[in-house]
């Protein structure tokens, strides 16, 4: 009896949540919000630009897609360590089609990641971009590249946990403070 009531209440709550999320999805994205997000087109020359802008600095470049559930979980982990993210130490690259820009921007807003360095694949031949990033990458997502200060890098396939991110951030924050 009481179990039924609990189930009933849960269902009602679930319905409320569901209809709310539908509403979010269906609502047109406010133009001002869109304009405030800098989603740069990632072309064949973008990686060179990204590394050049970070000469002598360690950073993580993460490739993700809105069609990839583990990527969306991973973005939540980034949100959790948001206070330690800067425009320099993290680069997010969406491998989606530019047609999906509105959805991508919404996901970034939802995860409060709109102020960091965000890019979106922009090439008629996405394989070209994959190849430029890493000829040995099969396209699996999420994919992370951990760049050391000398830009030696390590690739990682699969979702990064919050603990992994925190450890990386701690290490590199420590190094920076030691250097100073």
């Amino acid at each position, binding site marked *: 009896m009481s179990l039924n009531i609990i189930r009933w209440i849960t269902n009602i709550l679930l319905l409320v949540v569901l209809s709310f999320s*539908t509403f979010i*999805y*269906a609502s047109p994205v406010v133009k001002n919000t869109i304009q405030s997000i800098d989603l740069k087109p990632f072309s064949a020359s973008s990686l060179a630009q990204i590394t050049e802008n970070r000469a002598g600095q360690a950073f993580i470049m993460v*490739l993700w*897609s*809105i*069609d*990839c*559930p*583990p*990527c969306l*979980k991973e973005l939540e982990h980034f949100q959790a360590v948001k206070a330690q993210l800067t425009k320099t130490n993290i680069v997010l690259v969406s*491998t*989606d*089609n530019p047609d999906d820009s509105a*959805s991508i921007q919404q996901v970034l807003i939802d995860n409060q990641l709109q102020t960091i360095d965000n890019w979106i*694949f922009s090439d*008629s*031949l*996405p*394989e*070209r*971009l*994959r*190849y430029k990033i*890493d*000829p*040995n*990458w*099969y*396209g*699996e*997502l*999420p*994919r992370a590249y*951990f760049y050391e200060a000398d830009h030696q890098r*390590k690739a*990682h*396939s*699969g*979702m990064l*946990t919050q*603990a*992994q991110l925190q*450890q*990386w951030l*701690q*290490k590199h924050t*420590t*190094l920076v403070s*030691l250097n100073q």
Partner: protein
Amino acid sequence: MNKYVLILLSTILLSTESSAAMNMKGGHSAVQASLVPSCQDAKALPSPHCGRVPTAVYGQTAKHNGLLYVVFSQNSHIYLATSIDQGVTYNAPIAINRTPELMYDDGENRPKIVLGNNQEIYVSWSHKTKGRYSGDVRFARSLDAGLTFDEPVTINSDRALISHRFDAMKLDDQGHLYIVWIDKRDKAKAESLEQAYDGASLYYVVSKDSGASFFPNSKRVDNSCECCRIAIDTDNQGKVVTLWRQVYPSNIRDHAIAYLDPISHLSTNTNLNASSVKSQSVLERKPMRATNNQWQIEGCPHHGPDLSIDGENIAHMAWFTQGEADKGLMYGQFDLSQNKIGLTSTIDQSAGASRPQVYVHEKTVYLMWKRFEGESMALLLRRSNDGGKTWLADETIAVTLNGSDHPDWLWDGAKLFATWHTQDEGFQIIPIQPVPGTPKVK
């Protein structure tokens, strides 16, 4: 001191691969707008060159006059174009859905066309409904060789705003039409009961009156992968066989193979009533594991298999995997009479290789796939004259510098062609030259 501990810790974390928690999409997006000059004219008619995901079939019987039929998507319509000169020119296309609707039109989820034994043309596609990944399977038919089409109908009986997509369609040798698709109704039901449910399920329908009506939706299997196309062919008895990516325990995403209609809607006098529904849970023949690469991955690779069955009832299969032992594009055989996996070999392990296709004709097996080679995308062909035991050297049959669709086969009853839609070149029909040389000895 602290510094070194942290470095040590991060070294450990970097070497730990959580390979299950990933997905494949890294830029596998659909072909973008055509770059063919004639398509840039705003007044240009819809065409297989200018539209998206053209899919072709030859009308081999006299009733179809040897016409080439091509369905494609453009401006929220599925169009049918015909050609009398093997695709050099096309007649003005006809819109199959007169009311525009959103549709899935990427390489993995594209319109299908099947010709009947008379003048029937059957077309199916996945209509995009509200919400991410949601869709309905749509079907339309023509009984007059494409002059007119009936109003499209929705095939899935479940109409929730969830996924019913990735339709595949085939006619068996009795002229009965089968449509199978990936359906998330069971996943949705499980979720509403707060139960776990891996992947989606495969549902199918059968029509024995040329698509005028269909038997009720039947479930073929639980726990299929969510967004990989389904491969379909007929065996040496003309029965429909499907090959699909299946989610095995611990998120292992290898492939399963099965006859599509184990309850045999056609051998009994079942009608569209409850008595036929009752028998639907009985699987006369369980799906069999067809590939065993132990690929553990959370999420769908969006990279489905291909299938072609020979006269000895050997299913020839091509697929993509990132398993523990094998990575890249694979070729394999499954013996449908013996119910067991046969020969297996690697097609191409390079990271730029994708979209393998297989076609068998008598003892000749053809493989085709795309490979990005630094600057350009090549379409490669490999063939075997001895049923897949030994292979001749690879041939590059086309190259493009911009975006491209999945390649496909086209058989005209005597000759094999490759079809490939590219942004730069439009829709190409590439003849496959007859096999050079004599069959090699093993």
